């Protein structure tokens, strides 16, 4: 269904890009990241994800999803689980 305007990227496309970014940042195989579900813990749960790695993750998200992430956007909720991060990315992509 097209209304002639640019449509935001589909959820599946954002999900795929986000998993690829996480695989790059965490150094995990694609299969491992494919097994992440909405409740998979991220910041505070994965030792690979320290503040510098989160900074890299957010910067990659900005560059690859074409979004801008402000200081105030970054909170424990969006970073705590994969589902939280995906919901955040989707909301930002709609805004952009």
């Amino acid at each position, binding site marked *: 269904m097209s209304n002639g305007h640019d449509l935001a990227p589909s959820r599946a496309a954002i999900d795929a890009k986000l998993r690829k970014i996480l695989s790059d*940042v965490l*150094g995990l195989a694609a299969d491992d990241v494919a097994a992440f579900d909405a409740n998979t813990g991220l910041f505070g749960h994965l030792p*690979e994800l320290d503040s*510098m*790695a*989160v*900074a890299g993750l957010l910067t990659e998200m900005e560059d690859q999803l074409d979004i801008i992430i402000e200081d105030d956007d970054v909170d424990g909720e969006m970073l705590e689980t994969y589902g939280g991060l995906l919901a955040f990315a989707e909301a930002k992509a709609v805004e952009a």
Partner: protein
Amino acid sequence: MTPFTLVNWPCHAAGCGNDHSEMALAFDRGRKVRLLVIPALFDEANKLRRQTINVMRRLDLAGIDTFVPDLPGCNESIASLPQQTLAIWRDATVEAVRNFKVTHILTVRASAMLAPDGLPGWAWAPTGGRQALRGMIRARTIAAKEAGRPEKTEDIQTLGRTEGVELAGWQIGAEMFRDLESANPAAHLIEIPQSDLGGPGLWLRAEPDEDADQADTLATILSNALELNP
């Protein structure tokens, strides 16, 4: 395989002390093609060190001499890190070019800002000063928020420009901070984008890592180009 050597080189770059020497890691057999490798900067220096040396080992096997110098204020340098500026690091790069009589240069990520004019070479996944600062400032705001004493990006930038600031453990002086905000990769280098290496940038990882396939690919790109245009 040539064993690498750790060598002193005299660094007279203005502003970083008189007559001091810096260290360099060298694969030097007096061969015709001599490549200066300027290391990645700041937090990426540590993450990319191992991979950078792995690429140099492969270039050694391909018959290319390589040298990676310490920049003033980094590693074993006696120069003070917070007193460094991009101008000093550019001068130091010119000194290293002269000392090692190199024919070509390879920059790694943000060190593309330091490449002197007139020396041909390549920029591996180049990035500018603003991008280098962006990641480190963001890491600081995230850590500060986590510690319950939030800081704003704008406040860190103001501090950086006026007094200097510590980012990712690196003491960045005010002049260096202001330099970085507007510095771009040297335009005359040939870019080797990370996407050409068949894998993700290792600077994204929390810890230093290595990737043999990526090192093979980068060394092959460079050695092929140097054979065509030695």
